[in-house]
């Protein structure tokens, strides 16, 4: 009994000895929509034995539930725990934009322009707790400029200026070199093969949406393929997984047939919707390959787990296959299972490569130049970090 009392006394003494955190301040969290508060305090000395901090705030309540709480009138039980952070953290961002009204309102909500009160306390080993700090107050504001995204703006503007410059140069007649891309060079050959064999061509636009850049780039290649199939009068099948994509594909193919002077060959039924679900779509496309015995398969756009399922089925039927995607995890599958693969950016370069239009080639050169710049910065960054050990370049790239 005596031992227990002594232990309890020692624990109480330890709890009383744990000093309250010092230097607590609260301010609007920068670069947010207006529902965040940034709390900062001074690090406790190691000798204090602090292991973590508990962050408390006065809850939000809708107007019909009463006036906002103030530290002077709020009972101790009114304060709510919003988070616990272990040492060595000396800051905490409290963010909650989910407003719920009625009886089931969200007390953790931080209203834009509303005043929020905080206090914190330190936690020691066992159940040791310090006293609370005096309450601090802050108001959350929405920001009109994200200060950590200026680097993106600089690169985008630089790219824009270079694009305009190279488009001008290209229009003035300057010859801008684009390296050969085997996957694009073989398009005509692949279409010719299907024509000779008298078998259809399959064009898969992936399982992305019409809003994906890779899907939009795939339409450029579809337009080219459709133009050739119109000239050769080869059947072109385009199964799609989204109605919007189907309508876009029909418009693209129809325009290509018109351009080729063969509008009568165009059949909208060859561009059809199957399913928005990944595997039913794969099953239908694979069945299409086996039944129609397609001679050439194109896989262009966004692909996920279905990439290999499609490409292997095509390989079994002996089709010549050309693929292109910007999804890095799927690229090895396409490289292994198809004859030619457009890797990442090559898919986007297709329009410039195929059309050789100055307006399209110019931006490609600008992109290459920025890429070279990034490479130089990366090398300089590695050298700087290795030799000097400073983080100047990395801070420049990723501002804090």
């Amino acid at each position, binding site marked *: 009994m005596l031992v227990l009392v002594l232990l309890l006394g020692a624990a109480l003494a330890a709890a009383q000895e744990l000093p309250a955190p010092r230097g607590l301040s609260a301010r609007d969290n920068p670069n947010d929509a207006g529902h965040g508060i940034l709390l900062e305090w001074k690090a406790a000395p190691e000798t204090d034995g602090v292991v973590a901090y508990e962050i408390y705030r006065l809850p939000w309540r809708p107007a019909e539930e009463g006036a906002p709480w103030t530290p002077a009138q709020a009972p101790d039980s009114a304060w709510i725990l919003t988070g616990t952070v272990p040492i060595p953290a000396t800051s905490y961002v409290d963010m909650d934009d989910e407003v719920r009204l009625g009886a089931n309102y969200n007390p953790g909500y931080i209203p834009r322009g509303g005043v929020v009160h905080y206090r914190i306390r330190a936690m020691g080993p066992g159940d040791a707790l310090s006293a609370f700090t005096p309450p601090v107050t802050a108001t959350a504001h929405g*920001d009109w400029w994200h200060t950590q995204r200026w680097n993106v703006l600089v690169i985008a503007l630089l790219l824009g200026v270079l694009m305009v410059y190279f488009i001008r140069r290209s229009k003035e007649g300057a010859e801008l070199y684009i390296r050969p891309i085997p996957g694009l060079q073989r398009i005509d050959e692949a279409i010719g093969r299907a024509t000779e064999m008298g078998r259809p061509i399959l064009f898969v636009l992936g399982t992305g949406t019409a809003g994906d*850049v890779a899907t939009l780039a795939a339409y450029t290649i579809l337009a080219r393929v459709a133009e050739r199939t119109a000239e050769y009068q080869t059947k072109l099948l385009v199964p799609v997984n989204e109605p919007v994509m189907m309508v876009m594909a029909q418009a693209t193919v129809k325009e290509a047939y018109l351009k080729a002077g063969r509008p009568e060959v165009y059949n909208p039924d060859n561009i059809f919707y199957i399913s928005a679900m990944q595997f039913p779509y794969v099953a239908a496309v694979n069945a299409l390959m086996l039944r129609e015995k397609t001679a050439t398969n194109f896989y262009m756009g966004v692909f996920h787990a279905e990439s290999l399922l499609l490409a292997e089925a095509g390989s079994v039927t002996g089709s010549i296959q050309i693929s292109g995607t910007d999804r890095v995890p799927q690229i090895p599958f396409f490289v292994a299972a198809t004859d030619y693969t457009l890797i990442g950016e090559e898919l986007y370069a297709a329009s410039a490569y195929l059309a050789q239009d100055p307006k*399209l080639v110019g931006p490609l050169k600008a992109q290459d130049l920025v890429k070279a710049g990034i490479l130089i910065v990366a090398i300089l960054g590695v050298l700087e970090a290795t030799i000097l050990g400073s983080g100047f370049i990395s801070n420049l790239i990723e501002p804090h």
Partner: protein
Amino acid sequence: MKRQVPIFLVFLCGLTMVIQFFVPHDYSDVLFQYANDFVIVIGILALPVGIYSLMKNTVNKAMRDPKERIFSALTILGFLVMIVAGLKREWFASSTSLSSNMFNYVLVPAQATLFSMLAFYIASAAYRAFRARTVLAAVLLVTAFVVMLRLIPLPEPVATWNAEFVRWILEVPNMAAKRAILIGVALGAITYSTKILLGIERAYMGTD
């Protein structure tokens, strides 16, 4: 006019979204959500076009080829059953409803079966990819062999050496290649998007 208006709309919407990226304010967030809701609305409005296309193709296939009739009938039957099963909210909201049972005990196993075929496809694709016909293919074969060795029990200290070497392969040369592709993709996407915004790239509209 028929082409100018869509290009102008693309420019306007695209520019708004570009500006939105740099403005973290609540109003900007609301605008973003609103634009996303529009995408969903457009998708829903286009759905009848997709259903019509699916039904038309299924019926045409059945009329053209007698061997296809059973599959076409199943497609139409499945489509109608799911529509009827989901006509009322209470019919599909419960976990024991016909709609849920069809989904959980027909569609999900069918999808899992198809997905499981990936294991066999990986094996056959790997067999073709790993044939050492060129120097690069031989390097790929050796690297893959070393990486796969990590998954089998090896005696010490070979296991530790192999684990370290594999970690280096994955974190240094492999990661470098992945990041190089990603940088290219990011720049390519920005350039392509800019071309779309400026109306230079128009193939997706059915015109170039």
